[in-house]
């Protein structure tokens, strides 16, 4: 794998994920923010896979918000609309789960012998998450994880030909 080019993809994704988190009023990046960033990544791979199901990055972001709103509603809370958070200057702030998620992404890229890490690898890794916000987000979007994984792998194959 082209390490430097792949590192740039990860850096771009994390930069965008931080913007997503701040937009949603959060100061720490979580894996679901990386998923939203992947859905809108300029390489277009994840976007193409999602578009086949009529989904775009905005819908993924709205689904993340909906997952948290539903969970709060279950305990009788209405958090209202979050005010965007100003970006914190200095070092990147992410949950431990982000590191674990990115390791899974890189494992998937290796497993599929990818030359360059793609936003579609993020989708593949997301389909392997069985519980938590990412899994609930995909469920909320009506996406079957196995179908989504097959579509993402097919997209990756089409792009290497």
């Amino acid at each position, binding site marked *: 794998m082209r390490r430097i080019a792949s590192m740039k993809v990860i850096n771009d994704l994390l930069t965008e994920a931080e913007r997503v988190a701040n937009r949603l*009023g*959060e*100061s*720490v990046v979580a894996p679901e923010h990386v998923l939203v960033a992947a859905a809108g990544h300029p390489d277009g791979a994840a976007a193409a896979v999602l578009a086949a199901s009529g989904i775009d990055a905005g819908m993924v972001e709205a689904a993340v918000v909906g*997952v*948290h*709103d*539903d*969970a*709060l509603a*279950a*305990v*009788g*809370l*209405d*958090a*209202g609309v*979050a*005010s965007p*958070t*100003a970006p*914190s*200057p*200095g070092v990147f702030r992410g949950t431990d789960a982000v590191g674990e998620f990115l390791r899974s992404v890189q494992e998937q890229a290796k497993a599929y012998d990818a030359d360059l890490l793609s936003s579609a690898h993020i989708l593949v890794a997301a389909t392997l998450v069985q*519980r*938590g*916000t990412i899994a*609930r987000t995909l469920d909320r979007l009506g996406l079957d994880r196995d179908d989504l994984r097959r579509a993402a792998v097919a997209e990756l194959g089409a792009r290497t030909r």
Partner: protein
Amino acid sequence: MIDGMDLRGVPAPEDPEAALAAVVALRRLADRLEREAVDEALAQGWSWSMVAEALGVTKQAAHKKHARRQGPRRDARGDR
């Protein structure tokens, strides 16, 4: 702002997935509420010691968590 708080109850322990999703969402909400309240307290002229005392943490812990967001001017004022 956070409004409309009316805690009805918690998900049944028989449904850990729903209960844990609520924990995640509550944690995020608490984080948001803390940030907004600290920013407002500082804007009203509270010192870091007052903020820390209200949060039940040390001044160093409160400063470490929230000072970066305040920018250099607020940080330069130190503990007023």
